């Protein structure tokens, strides 16, 4: 045995001590990790272990490293049946753009024409989407649509305990982050409530939940926050949550309110831009946060990138004049939504019928317009940009199980409406109805 080892010319990676192997694997981007786990049983055991997932996440999230994992774009349609205010068609499709062929492919993740209870997106955290109910009651669910996992988020009693039962939710927003010191994921919630019957005063309350536990606790709210914050002006980066927020008070302007999940505190991040809220977007771009200023008055788009996260220093990295893009269509940037995609950004127009892909690589900077197709009925289309992660919702609690009944759908007693074609993720959307 010993002589054979001596004669071996090559040293194999698998001969290295396991701690070293883990040191190497933890630095790999998700895509590579997924490759590795298919190669051998030993590697699969290492990579699937909760210990490794924790280690990898702890390395990945605080450094905000994308490291080769392109965001997965997902298109969400919510369209109303003509003449009906309640019947809607909801669909979630994955959107893939083939650069070499210039082709856009959409593949359905699920669709339903039942009324969706958890219809509003609360936030997007890596590849997790949190949905909340349209009529707010503090219930939300966390889902991983790409692998069909759904988790009910524990409800909170704090508001009722504090104010009594006679309250109305005015708005409710959520954010999720990662504390790499305790290796825990947390959800922060900001609610604005009114006391019935007077409705004279509103209160803003912030709460925090550590995922995996079942109790929320109240935390101090930053004085500048007077109402809940829209999810689509938010971004998660470096494990913290950042929101664009309009201050109607004395210091008028747009702030960036951030939440540090380690210290469990809100703080303000400097905003370098003076444009008004509707024209600003907060996104991640590569390994940094960026502000996209679509301007109303000028024919240009500016992108500011946060070059130094610790010092919160911004730099205006791109100035894109509309005429430079060589577009045939008249794309109204100031009415578009945008987000990150591989090598750059996408813009989706107001109607949700046209997509613009902006490749920001210096060597191949270009812009490609792509129609998605007209909507059948009135409604909205939104794109969500998901970043792959190794997070499994299983570690936070029992996932919502697929209902036992095969024939009778759980949604039947809602009355009317067929359930659309159910792909393998039917249990996922059935949960959406409750």
């Amino acid at each position, binding site marked *: 045995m010993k002589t054979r080892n001596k004669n071996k*010319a*090559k*040293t*194999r*990676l*698998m*001969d*290295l*001590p396991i*701690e*070293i192997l883990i*040191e*190497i*694997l933890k*630095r*790999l*981007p998700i*895509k*590579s990790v*997924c*490759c*590795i786990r*298919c*190669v*051998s049983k030993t*590697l699969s055991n290492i990579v699937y272990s909760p210990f490794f997932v924790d280690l990898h996440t702890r390395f990945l999230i605080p450094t905000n490293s994308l*490291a*080769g994992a392109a965001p997965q774009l997902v298109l969400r349609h919510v369209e109303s049946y003509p003449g009906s205010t309640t019947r809607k068609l909801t669909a979630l499709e994955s959107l893939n753009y083939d650069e070499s062929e210039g082709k856009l492919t959409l593949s359905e993740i699920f669709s339903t024409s039942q009324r969706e209870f958890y219809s509003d997106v609360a936030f997007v955290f890596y590849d997790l989407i949190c949905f909340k109910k349209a009529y707010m009651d503090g219930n939300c669910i966390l889902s991983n649509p*790409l*692998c*069909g996992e759904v988790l009910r988020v524990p409800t909170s009693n704090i508001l009722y305990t504090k104010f009594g039962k006679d309250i109305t939710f005015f708005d409710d927003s959520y954010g999720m982050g990662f504390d790499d010191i305790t290796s825990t994921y947390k959800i922060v919630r900001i609610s604005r409530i009114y006391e019935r019957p007077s409705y004279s005063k509103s209160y803003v309350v912030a709460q925090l939940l550590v995922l995996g536990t079942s109790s929320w606790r109240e935390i101090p709210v930053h004085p500048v926050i007077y109402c809940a914050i829209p999810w689509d002006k938010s971004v998660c980066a470096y494990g913290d949550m950042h929101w664009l927020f309009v201050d109607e008070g004395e210091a008028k302007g747009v702030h960036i309110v951030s939440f540090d999940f380690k210290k469990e505190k809100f703080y303000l991040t400097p905003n370098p831009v003076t444009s008004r809220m509707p024209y600003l977007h907060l996104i991640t771009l590569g390994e940094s946060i960026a502000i996209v200023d679509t301007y109303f008055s000028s024919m240009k788009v500016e992108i500011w990138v946060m070059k130094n996260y610790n010092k919160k220093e911004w730099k205006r990295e791109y100035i894109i004049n509309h005429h430079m893009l060589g577009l045939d269509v008249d794309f109204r940037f100031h009415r578009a939504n945008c987000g990150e995609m591989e090598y750059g950004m996408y813009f989706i127009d107001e109607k949700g019928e046209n997509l613009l892909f902006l490749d920001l690589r210096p060597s191949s900077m270009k812009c490609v317009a792509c129609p998605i197709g007209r909507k059948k009925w009135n409604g909205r289309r939104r794109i969500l940009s998901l970043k*792959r992660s190794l997070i499994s919702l299983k570690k936070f609690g029992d996932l919502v199980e697929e209902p036992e009944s095969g024939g009778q759908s759980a949604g039947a007693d809602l009355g009317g409406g067929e359930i659309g074609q159910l792909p393998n993720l039917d249990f996922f959307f059935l949960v959406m109805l409750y």
Partner: protein
Amino acid sequence: MSRVFKLKSSDNETFEVEEAAALLSETIKSSSSTEITVPNVKAEILGKVVEWCNKHAESEDTKDQLIKEWDAEFVSVDQHVLFKLITAADYLQIKELVDQLTQRVGDMIKAKTLKTVEMTYPTFNVEREVQEELKSLGF
């Protein structure tokens, strides 16, 4: 007055190392003797490790651009040498060197896995060629 440490390779070659360079190794730091034998590590490899330590003892500031370039050159070696260097650096517990070397291996794996594989969900299939490529790395 700085001590001189003697590092002995598995094929009986001795390297003399100044205190500042030697103490980059946790193993040497916690050793009671100034003569340390490094088992399973040949002279060629031990020599390179000593070279790295000497370079890093000279300059305190590891953020220096020149050092970074030198480090990048240092780790651009054949994978067999790379793995042997890792084993040596691990035994000697030189954290910075282990980090640099493992990062390099990670980069090599990344390069081999990123281009050829399509990520499809929820199941994931690895192309045969990627498996072959990874095998060449010693998986």
